[in-house]
């Protein structure tokens, strides 16, 4: 018979434990979110990250150990991006009717997302390496990390900033849009998908199907736009 501590030492080093915990933390977080009627503050991504980070911190588990289990989920970001083709295909009629406003909002929005970081980041005195890792933060995680590392940034830092941007956008979008009296759910969805990629898109799908679709399209388009704009601005401004 082995001591329970030995079991913990064995399990905490295995991918199985962290993958299982991540899934159950997510199930718990979505249950809380649904119970609270999808209140924006009860964001399931935020709750899950808080639960898992606290666990790692309490038990002094290195992130690398956790990631060995969680990488299986991380990997699915790729096929999930491809999956956006399906809502796009289903609602193509709606999309075609909004092509011009989408193109305008994409160009203006994508530049705002990157330029605001350049200007405010310099004003706030962020170091150069943080700034470069910060720029692609509105693109979806896989894309942003690729951009960041190609420009000499820190992809892990970029990933964290991407997720934080996603959460902040998902938290503020509903109250902000209500305060601005925007009732066009296509426009609301497009804005949150452009700003907050997949996490914003998840939030938009919780609120309204049309908003979710336009968020997904904005996320796809902004992944493209950001990978074109960021290298350009780095060359010109930084």
């Amino acid at each position, binding site marked *: 018979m082995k001591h329970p501590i030995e079991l913990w030492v064995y399990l905490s080093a295995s991918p199985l434990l962290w993958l299982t915990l991540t899934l159950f933390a997510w199930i718990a977080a979505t249950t809380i979110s649904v119970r609270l009627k999808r209140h924006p503050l009860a964001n399931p991504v935020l709750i899950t990250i808080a639960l898992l980070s606290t666990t790692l911190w309490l038990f002094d588990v290195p992130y690398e150990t956790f990631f060995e289990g969680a990488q299986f989920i991380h990997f699915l970001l790729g096929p999930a991006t491809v999956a956006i083709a*399906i809502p796009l295909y289903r609602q193509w009629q709606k999309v075609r009717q909004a092509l011009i406003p989408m193109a305008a909002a994409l160009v203006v929005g994508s530049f705002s997302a990157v330029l605001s970081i350049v200007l405010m980041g310099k004003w706030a005195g962020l170091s150069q390496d943080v700034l470069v890792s910060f720029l692609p933060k509105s693109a979806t995680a896989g894309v942003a990390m690729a951009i960041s590392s190609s420009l000499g940034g820190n992809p892990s830092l970029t990933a964290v900033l991407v997720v934080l941007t996603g959460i902040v956008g998902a938290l503020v979008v509903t109250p902000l849009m209500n305060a601005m009296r925007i009732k066009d759910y296509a426009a609301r969805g497009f804005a949150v998908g452009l700003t907050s990629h997949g996490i914003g898109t998840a939030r938009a799908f919780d609120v309204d199907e049309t908003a979710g679709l336009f968020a997904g399209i904005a996320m796809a388009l902004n992944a493209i736009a950001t990978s074109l704009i960021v290298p350009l601005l780095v060359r010109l401004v930084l």
Partner: protein
Amino acid sequence: MIKGIALLLLFQLLGESIVFTTGLPLPGPVVGLVLLFVAMQACKMLGLGLFAEAETAADGFLANLGLLFVPAGVGIVALWSQLQSQAGAILLVLVASAVLTLAITVWTFVIVRRLVGRE
């Protein structure tokens, strides 16, 4: 379900291959998205129903999209000691940029849609 996931992975694979060989400045999954969309449109025109299972798999992914960002987000525990000194400034810039981007994007969309609608 398995066929659906295999199809999504196949299109990501095609996307990655195209980006790798052509040096296109785009992420592989984004190219895969475009390719899958075109393939689905083509199948519709030909009256083929090849992508029913891909739709099931995609619905599953999109319903749990937030989960996929969790592993990257937990990375904050690994970076915290490094970021601590700049954490306040980073958070301020991040929130301001997000609010600004949301507002500017939604305004542009709404205003341009109205202008186009009037023609």
